[in-house]
């Protein structure tokens, strides 16, 4: 019997829990989006409309257009200025519209705004451009020692509340794991109007080049080990808040998908595996998932979702263990071998 892989996420009926996560190299070109759909993507989250970058690009373009201008009689300018200028946001919206036109699967837009007003304004325009849903990518590195965590949490909540008030789109919030009490935060966001939470954002983490003594941008792709963090929190949150949960980070094998679904994820977002192995890897994941389900005589994904959440698992205390000593006591060599896996 072929198992039923379908699931629902943010009210969207999806053919499988395999959703392409937000990453520019995966979603900037239409041809790539089409390849992902062919490979079985159930939905695609576009890369973020990143407003800070857009502002920076506008200022850069302006600066370069002015460089050297009106200085020398024979060369009053150095670049032709186009009469039509698709600012960064226009470009994103155009791309979103085109993606919607040429794909049958849902297209989820992603937004990283700069100020509360801008979040709302951009969310409206994304809705008008036809997005199937919107993922709010709320993240900043707070470095101001005067800024309290309560203020940061209130701001996140406020952004969700304001966007919710203005758009009818299904709304997911992609979160950082660094909240003092993530459970409380999840509740506040659900109350503010989030339909789903994406756990978690993986951040740009700079590295140090020890030869040149410079700080270098370094984007590391996830490994299967990374899924432990979302797995725990999905298990803890599943069934406790009225939101869908999406797992992000560390989905590389069909069994990873199985684990996260068991923890309570409605969908799993895949990025690293696709960047490493290409869009076709999605088909492989789907086959591995289906095989596992068949081998274990599970008829549908829906049966699996949340079966190992904290509320339903046989040993719920394991999810709350935090102490190193207790973890060591629970350590068994067989676990270690399994954790190494083929990677």
């Amino acid at each position: 019997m072929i198992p039923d892989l379908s699931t629902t996420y943010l009210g969207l009926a999806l053919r499988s829990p395999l959703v392409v996560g937000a990453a520019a190299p995966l979603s900037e070109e239409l041809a790539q989006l089409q390849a992902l759909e062919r490979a079985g993507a159930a939905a695609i989250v576009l890369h973020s409309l990143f407003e800070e970058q857009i502002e920076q690009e506008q200022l850069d373009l302006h600066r370069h257009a002015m460089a050297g201008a009106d200085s020398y009689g024979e060369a009053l300018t150095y670049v032709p200025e186009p009469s039509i200028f698709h600012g960064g946001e226009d470009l994103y919206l155009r791309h979103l519209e085109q993606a919607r036109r040429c794909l049958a699967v849902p297209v989820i837009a992603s937004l990283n705004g700069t100020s509360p007003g801008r979040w709302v304004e951009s969310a409206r325009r994304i809705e008008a451009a036809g997005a199937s849903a919107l993922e709010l990518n709320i993240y900043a590195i707070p470095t101001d020692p005067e800024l309290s965590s309560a203020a940061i949490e209130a701001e996140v909540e406020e952004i969700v509340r304001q966007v919710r008030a203005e758009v009818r789109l299904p709304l997911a919030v992609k979160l950082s794991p660094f909240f003092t009490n993530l459970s409380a935060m999840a509740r506040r966001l659900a109350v503010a109007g989030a339909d789903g939470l994406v756990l978690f954002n993986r951040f740009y983490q700079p590295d140090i080049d020890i030869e040149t003594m410079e700080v270098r941008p370094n984007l590391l792709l996830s490994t299967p080990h990374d899924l432990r963090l979302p797995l725990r929190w999905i298990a803890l949150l599943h069934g406790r808040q009225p939101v869908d949960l999406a797992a992000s980070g560390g989905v590389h094998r069909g069994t990873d998908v199985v684990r996260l679904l068991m923890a309570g994820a409605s969908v799993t977002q895949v990025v690293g595996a696709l960047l490493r192995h290409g869009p076709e890897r999605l088909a492989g994941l789907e086959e591995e998932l289906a095989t596992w389900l068949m081998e274990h005589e599970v008829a549908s994904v829906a049966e699996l979702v949340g079966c190992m959440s904290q509320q339903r698992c046989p040993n719920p205390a394991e999810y709350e263990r935090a102490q190193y000593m207790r973890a060591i006591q629970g350590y068994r060599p067989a676990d270690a071998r399994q954790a190494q896996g083929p990677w």
Partner: protein
Amino acid sequence: MIPNLYKLAGELTPAVLHVAARSLAAQGLSIFGDHSDVMATRGSGCGILCSASVQEAGDFAAIAARLSLRSRLPFLHVFDGFRTSHEIQKIEPLSDSQLLELMPAAEISAHRARALSPNRPVIRGTSQNPDVYFQARESVNRFYDAAPAHLIEAMARLGELTGRPYRPYDYVGPATAERVLVLMGSGCETAVEAAEALQAAGERVGVLKVRLFRPFAARLLVEALPPSTRAIAVLDRCKEPGAPGEPLYLDVVAALAEEWAAVHGAVPLPAVLGGRYGLSSKEFTPAMVKAVFDHLRPLLVPGQPRPLNHFTVGIDDDLTHRSLPLDADVEQGFHTDAAEVRAVFYGLGSDGTVGANKAAIKIIGEGTDLYAQGYFVYDSKKSGSVTVSHLRFGPQPIRSTYLIQRPTFVACHQWDFVERFDLLAGIEPGGVFLLNSPFAPADTWARLPEALRSQIRAKGIQVQQINAYQVARQAGMGPHINTVMQACFFALSGVLPRQEAFTRIRHSIETSYRRKGEAVVAMNLAALDASLEHLVRLDWSSLDDSGPEPLREDRLNGAPDFVRTVIGPMLERRGDALPVSALPCDGTWPVGTARWEKRNIADAVPVWESDLCVQCGKCVLVCPHAVIRAKVGAPEVFVAAPEGFRIAPARDPAFAGQTFTIQVAAEDCTGCALCVEVCPARDRSEPKRKAINMAPQRPLREQARGNWDFFLQLPEVPRAELNLHKIGQQQLQQPLFEFSGACGGCGETPYLKLASQLFGDRMLIANATGCSSINGGNLPTTPWSANAEGRGPAWSNSLFEDNAEFGYGMRVARDQQRQMALDLLERLAGQLEPDELPPPLAAAIRNADQGDEAGIVEQRQRVAELKARLAGMEQPEARQLLELADALVKTNVWLVGGDGWAYDIGFGGLDHVLASGRDVNALVLDTEVYSNTGGQASKSTPRGAVAKFAAAGKAAPKKDLGLMAMTYGTVYVASVAMGARDEHTIRVFLEAESYPGPSLIIAYSHCIAHGIDMAQGMAHQKLAVDSGRWLLYRYDPRRTERGEIPLQLDSPAPTCSLKEAMEQENRFRMLRYSQPERAQALVRQAQRELECRWATYRALAQPAPKP
């Protein structure tokens, strides 16, 4: 082009070329405006129609099209370069419907019917023989006879549509005028303005504006003159040396001789004089007009001696005494419009002054009934360039086609200018002086030069100041103070009520910047809002100005006489006052003059940290302006160094025990920071501190000056002792290209400087027109220099199109001289006694190996000995050999230019010279765009790059010039990128120079037109190589002789994607914002081509598989 004009006319092909008339390269190139180029075409058979103002240029463009189609003659529609082409004026443009009305449908159909078509084939361009050519030439006469009537018709038609009537020859003045000025072009406007002022004073003068120059309608011209005319001055804006007069003068004389009696009967023929004015945009002012009218006055009085004919006006000809004297005070009477605002703005190119002024004209011209005019004067530098904007606003039409002489408002946007220029010259009493000052008012007043303060006091000037840089920076505008200063101008000038002005500026910001994004709009609005709060009146009447005036140093102290007397005034913007005798008659200019400029344009300059430096020489190598230099010497020579002069023990074992120093010419630095970016040495405990770091220039200036002077007098390291393959040693060679006016961070000049270090003492350079000719030869000063022995590159710029051939000629001449010298040596060896010319000396000279520095030094010594022996001899051969002996020492010929030269306009010649087999070295400074003229696409422009003429991204791939040259098999070809592999660049230069045949070096040169942060220029070069977009290779025919593969691929396989590299440069990135899909497609295509090219080169660099 000129032969094409003959063809166009000969075949009666309607066509209109709109020409901004400019000077021609003679004793020097000039880009500025006069009629030299137009007059060179006057025999072509093309019609020439001249407009005199911006409004006329628009109107005549349409008239010329109708005229050409109806008359079948091709027309040049000409207007004055810069004065008209670059002036901003309030005009009434023709509407589309008016234009349509003017286009003759029947003639367009007839024109199409005459076109070549295989459906009705004909033959044109036959070769005609003595039997018929002459008659055929005469067959067109009726078309020329009919053309003036077509012009009258077209002008009348336009007049009906617009209410602006014109005539082929427009006389302006009273019907009783006795003295008439005849001229064409923008000078007509000034002449009319001045004549009207003279008429108001009772003088019987008039002006005849010539619109139709070809076909010259003599009868119409004479009919336009009032019969009262007794004396005529014809002014030409060109010079035709050796002619009996300039072209317009000769034509007017002929017209009068032929037609006067027929038109005006027995009225005596007027006397005619010819004069020249306004060459190369030289100012033409009402005072000059008056001087010409005055010059005619004796012709009205019987018995007076005839005044000088073929005079000049506007210069001081103290050599042949042909210039007319000017009355310096005469301008007083010519500005009667009290309501006119005349504003002069002194700014930098980089601060946005000109852009702000253009916006101000737009705001006033478009939004009010006022007339507006703007004209902008730029200097000859591309870094730290000074701009002077001349803006007039008023209720009456503005006809003053000359710079403002009596401003009502002066703005100084840069504090440093208060000492450099006579800012308040001619300012009207009670005028406004707006100053961008970093100081508080009292301090500002105390720091102003007394000359300026006394002008302010004497004329009761209202002084206002603002710290514009502070306001702009706070608003996020960086160094662009345009919006801030524009706000202050509107607040102070009274052109518009303040509130209305600000509403209009706000609207202007929103409309001009909206499409560039909210962030740009917001930044400008923030600057606008903050401006007025910071504008303060400097109430000088209450301030003490008794303090001592700061001493002004004489920067030309110790300079050669020519620099002091000729270049000095040019540097102070007083070059117009130099007399004819001051200037070289053949354009020959001394070398090494840039060092006297001391422009002090950098806010920050590099400072060397002697303790951290690894003495690698990279900062010295990349410095585009040769302001960072290194020397090594015995510790004793540093004993007398000024306090604070930094030194370090030399690290290179070759200089064990010696002392090393790096010094910075802080006053010549542009502050580009390229040096800091390439510095590899860091402080381990604080890595942000490198071995060279930028620091504010002003506090360092005095100390750096003393250090630099001491550094210059330190002995140079003997060249023959240096290992040129080690950058640290090679960079000890003295650069003979220094302090050019190139852009800060220029990617071209490091290559030129390197060549000057390696070979400068034996270099002849033929430089194609382009950035390198402007950096290399734009007056007042030039960067090419000589060493202590007086040797250095001898440089000349011919044209864009003939540079390779020009240099080839140098090579041929030098080879011929060398051969003559060898022949003479041979003959003398047979004639002279061994003690007069020792046979071993002659043999050593003949057989000298000059393959390296040491060999050249030895040959120079031999030649010196030979010359010493020849000096006293009487034999004709000995005297001749004495003259030619220097040719026995190796001389390199370098053909230098950009991609516009080598890939495009000069390609045919370059190809010809490469094929010749002669020993020349072509250095192509490849910026992948016509940089000097503002970024037009060349065949070197890569696919996907946005450039002028490729605004949608260039659709064709970059031409592979190197591969084409390799097909000869006899040309040394190399491709380099200094920022990717500097030692490779040096190796290539050495190999190219040593190759005894033609060499071609294609050098990747980052450029301001690429839209990059110029401080990162070298990193962009590396990225070009890392992505595979630019290959490093050497093709050396000598390797073939040794049985090796001639091509060596010196760059590795691409390590990053082309897309990633292209994203880093605005020229590629901006296409995403206008045509995103096209941008993606072009990148994909370019990536495929890159892979294919890489595979091709890799295959060529590998041994061919055995068959």
